[in-house]
């Protein structure tokens, strides 16, 4: 296994993480052998197909995987191993590490007003604040996500989905002083203008407080706006690790390439209307009985034959590709997106790259994007 050198200062260091649900005889292996490091102040994106294990991974990092799941591997925050230490995990949860959950409705208790729930959170993490200060803090938190202060008297069902999502963002980022926020699809219910405000808020907080983040999203524009580098997940495994520029300009894994092709393009509306959007044939493998070879092999357009069906490819460094502009264009102009990948930055789990790495050739020669 090749791995980025783990500096002792990494805020989060996950090694060989696995999560399996259900019957131990035929487990659903939702996360398999995942290595993930996040440095101080760094923001790492995770993208991937629906059901590929992204939420499972985030929940396991905080020990929120539920009793039906078996977790293996190491999870260190600030150098402290938490994986098999529920007490240490509890101390970190909500304090050093907070989380934005994918489902904003269940994240709140339906029986209490939003003000009282946020107030309780603030009291927990900022015990030094008095009653009035606490109330002012809650109002200020809501203000930063565009929710009027009188809404503290409303119950969760009285909010629109996007409003509730913003309340949760406020709770995770602003109630305490987290060093790391795990954000699971935080902006799915927000329109582009409100999303842009949230992007600004997160950028400001990262600049002010040096906050780190792991962002799970299917919104590639958001990844470009907020992340320094990105992992692509497929069927429980990381299949590519790349920079933002690398993701858009020279995606290395065939799954990543197919993913980028499916998105409709606002600049080509007249041509695409009336036609169907390109999709990938087939579906994700059954995680309880994955195929022996590459998990993407049954759907891969760049399949190499027998080797892909037989052997699981390893996550290996991809020799640098010329910054070819691919069919889907280039990275949206963003902050973090302007760094070109450097040697060793890009790794992919695909036999094509293993083959070209051995022969020393340029990686994606002959690969049509």
């Amino acid at each position, binding site marked *: 296994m090749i791995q980025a050198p783990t500096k002792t200062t990494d805020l989060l260091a996950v090694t060989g993480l696995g999560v399996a649900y259900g019957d131990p005889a035929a487990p659903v292996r939702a996360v398999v052998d995942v290595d993930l490091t996040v440095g101080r102040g760094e923001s790492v994106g995770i993208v991937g197909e629906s059901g590929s294990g992204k939420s499972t991974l985030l929940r396991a990092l905080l020990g929120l995987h539920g009793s039906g799941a078996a977790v293996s591997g190491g999870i260190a925050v600030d150098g402290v191993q938490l994986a098999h230490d529920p007490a240490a995990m509890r101390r970190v949860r909500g304090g050093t590490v907070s989380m934005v959950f994918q489902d904003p409705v269940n994240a709140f208790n339906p029986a209490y007003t939003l003000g009282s729930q946020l107030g309780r959170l603030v009291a927990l993490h900022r015990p030094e604040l008095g009653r009035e200060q606490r109330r002012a803090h809650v109002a200020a938190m809501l203000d930063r996500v565009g929710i009027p202060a009188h809404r503290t008297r409303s119950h969760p069902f009285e909010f629109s989905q996007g409003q509730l999502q913003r309340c949760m963002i406020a709770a995770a980022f602003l109630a305490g002083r987290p060093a790391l926020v795990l954000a699971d699809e935080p902006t799915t219910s927000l329109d582009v203008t409100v999303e842009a405000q949230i992007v600004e808020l997160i950028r400001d907080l990262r600049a002010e407080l040096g906050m780190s983040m792991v962002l799970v999203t299917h919104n590639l524009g958001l990844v470009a706006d907020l992340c320094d580098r990105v992992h692509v997940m497929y069927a429980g495994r990381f299949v590519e690790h790349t920079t933002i520029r690398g993701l858009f300009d020279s995606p290395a894994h065939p799954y990543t390439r197919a993913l980028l092709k499916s998105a409709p393009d606002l600049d080509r509306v007249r041509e695409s209307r009336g036609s169907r*959007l390109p999709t990938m044939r087939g579906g994700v493998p059954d995680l309880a009985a994955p195929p022996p070879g590459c998990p993407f092999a049954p759907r891969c357009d760049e399949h190499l034959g027998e080797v892909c069906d037989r052997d699981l490819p390893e996550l290996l460094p991809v020799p640098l590709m010329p910054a070819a502009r691919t069919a889907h264009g280039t990275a949206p102009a963003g902050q973090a997106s302007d760094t070109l990948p450097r040697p060793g930055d890009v790794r992919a789990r695909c036999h094509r790259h293993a083959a070209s790495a051995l022969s020393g050739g340029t990686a994606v020669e002959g690969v049509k994007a």
Partner: protein
Amino acid sequence: MNAPDAAEPVIAADNLSVRFPVHTGLRERLRTGRRQLHAVDGVSLAVRASETVALIGESGSGKSTFGKALLHLETAHAGAIRFHGDDVTAATGDRLRELRRRRQLVFQNPYAAINRRRLIRDVIAEPLRYHQLGRADDRRARVHDLAGLVGLSPEHLDRYPHELSGGQLQRVVIARALALEPEFLVADEPTASLDVSVGAQIVNLFADMRDRFGLALLYISHDLPTVAHLADRIAVMYLGRIVESAPAAELVENPRHPYTQVLLASVPRRDPGHRRTAPARGEVPDAADRPSGCHFRTRCPLAMPVCAEQVPAAQVHGEHMVACHAAT
């Protein structure tokens, strides 16, 4: 499903309004009286057979409330709902039950819409059972077909809701809504929790339903590229009102309301020369305390004195409607 008269909308809202109470402190209530939040304020909109109308707009602008009110899932405070020309605003009993069968909703939040103690296969079969359609084994086969349509595998059917991912559960809700082959469907952010490739599959499925069965679709979404691809018309909502509506390509290429222009400018593009511009300046106003005149004026780059005084009237040029004092 027989194709009805193409000119007659399947469903139409006339001046529909929905209001909610606002919780205020006692002192404020004594001073200003009870306040109300105008979630939907006089919205008119029609959807024909084989037509897709998209509703876009800021978070909290009233899109979900409008969609639910159209389906009698939220009480309209004023206005009328017509189904194939009949006024059904006050429908009850058997009539309402029949309407429930012919009109469906894909809920914005799949978790809130599903009974957690039921197996996925029973969740999808629920409407078939409720309306007593088909024999048990027919229903079983139908559930398998529906699961396949939305890209779920057979092994997902024997799980409980909490054993699926967010996107898988979203697809369960879509399968359930399609089970009765509705004539009219409100899909509220149906692809928001899906990656682009699975989302594309669902969008194609809606397009098939529309072309093959004449489905009338109200598609609520903030995903502009998808909306522009799928919809025939796009209506833009801001604080309870429709501020612009036009054929999809026309709206994207020639937006006339300043809010629509801001919205389009904020969409990330693939064109390397394009930069995402900053969001509209200023705070999103409070829905319980909307600015007078044009609700967008506090954030509008083109605001003039008249914008504070008069509600801009709808100007119609062919199929393009815009409500803005600055639009000519």
